[in-house]
């Protein structure tokens, strides 16, 4: 019952070994060459085919017929050194590549910067820094620009003519917005409960507000940690 040893097709095997049988028909020889080339790990030479095909076969002819049949198909029979093997047609080699899409989360710095640009556009870098309370790493803006969510806007007509940043069509597409004006206002954010749920890292409010010290320690961002949250 657990006998795993498979007998080969005894008829076919006999056919293969016995010279008294006539050789298989040419279409059958073509099938045989096709199967052998397909299953082989290496290119197979005509001599090897001769060894493996039934006595009296004409592997050279079967091979050329096979090559003819595969002309223009998605795979073709190629000659490699002394041997022959199936290969993907040259014009379809592009199918042998796949793209894997890796999803990554934007860092908090990037999300915040993006949010400020979306809500305040056109906005200068200095303005972004003022709202965030920390300096904005150059890499953060570069990355947002590279992602095509942010682009440079007009220069501000103020001393120094600073560049401004605006969000792009691709940004609106990604976030499903018709325009940046569709972003909900503060009142709506509060209504949605987004303002009440205080982020855990900000801690608890202090009862006595007796402080005129700055709200946060002024920390420059670590540029390495700037963009990648995980």
């Amino acid at each position, binding site marked *: *019952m*657990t*006998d*795993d040893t*498979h007998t080969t097709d005894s008829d076919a095997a006999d056919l293969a070994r016995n010279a008294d049988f006539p050789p298989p028909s040419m279409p059958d020889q073509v099938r045989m060459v096709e*199967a052998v080339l*397909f*299953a*082989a*790990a*290496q290119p197979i030479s005509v001599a090897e085919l001769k060894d493996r095909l039934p006595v009296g076969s004409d592997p050279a002819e079967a091979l050329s017929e096979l090559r003819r049949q595969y002309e223009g198909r998605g795979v073709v029979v190629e000659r490699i050194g002394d041997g022959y*093997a199936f*290969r*993907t047609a040259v014009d379809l080699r592009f199918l*042998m*590549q*796949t*793209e*894997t*899409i*890796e*999803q*990554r*989360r*934007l860092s*908090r710095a*990037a*999300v*915040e910067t*993006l*949010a400020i640009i*979306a*809500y305040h556009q056109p906005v200068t870098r200095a303005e972004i820094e003022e*709202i*965030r*309370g920390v300096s904005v790493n150059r890499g953060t803006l570069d990355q947002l620009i590279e*992602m095509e969510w942010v682009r440079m806007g007009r220069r501000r007509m103020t001393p120094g003519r600073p560049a401004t940043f605006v969000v792009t069509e691709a940004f609106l597409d*990604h*976030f*499903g*917005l018709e325009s940046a004006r569709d*972003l*909900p206002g*503060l009142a709506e*954010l*509060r209504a*949605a409960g*987004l*303002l009440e749920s*205080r*982020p855990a890292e*900000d*801690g*608890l*409010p*202090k009862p006595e*507000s007796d*402080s005129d010290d700055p*709200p*946060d320690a002024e920390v420059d961002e670590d540029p390495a940690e700037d963009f990648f949250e995980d």
Partner: protein
Amino acid sequence: MNRTGRDVPYLKPVPDSPAQAGGEQDSVAQRRAEEAFIIDVDGYEGPLDLLLTLARTQKVDLMKISVLNLAEQYLKFVDQARKLRIELAADYLVMAAWLAFLKSRLLLPPDPEADGPSAEDMAAHLAFQLERLDAMRQAAARLMARDRLGIDRFRRGAPETVARKRRTEWRAGLIDLMRAYARLRTKDEFRPYAFDRKDIYTMEQALDRLRNMIGYAGDWTGISDFLPEGWGGQDARGRSATAATFAASLELARQGQLEIRQTETFAPISFRRRPSSDQS
């Protein structure tokens, strides 16, 4: 039922009634039987397998098997094993006991009082189990006889590798954006709460200090004299030190090391070491 390769029952070499011809021949036959039996017992995959083999000797369709006969065959087998002093695994004996029970119930008229499955139900289920096991064995044989990969059918011997390119897609939702903005706009409304350790005098500190000092306070001494340097003011530091020292004094009083005195409401609190005569 058509069986492949298993038509010879394992039990065959073991004679049902060993020829009692006597003499040396008898002992030789006995030994042979014993050997054959040992091999056979090892050959079974548990009691159900043994039952299936025995059932086949009845040469009827498994669904028409006589469970009563089968039970007797099985019990005879176990008996044989006992005679030959062969240790059978526990589950063979469990099955034997159960079959003995089933046999007795099949022979007796049904007890109307008895609840649970009838003897016939139990016998039918055993027959079902045997048929199912037999069916699975045949299925396994048919499965293994199929055209198998790497034996009868072959895959591409030199598969072409697929190059993988990686592209990064950034994930951020509108809600993340709004939340980030909300977080920024409300940052000024609250000051992060930081526990200011430098103005806190802990009870542990007070306890340490009081333990050291109380030994010298044979007489009533005001609480302010126990406060550390720089903690005696009317500010938050002073309040913290006073509260901690008072709490520490309660702990030491509980341990019987000091006494606390307050002459009237809101009057200054004084401590002294508890006189040693009371300490026992």
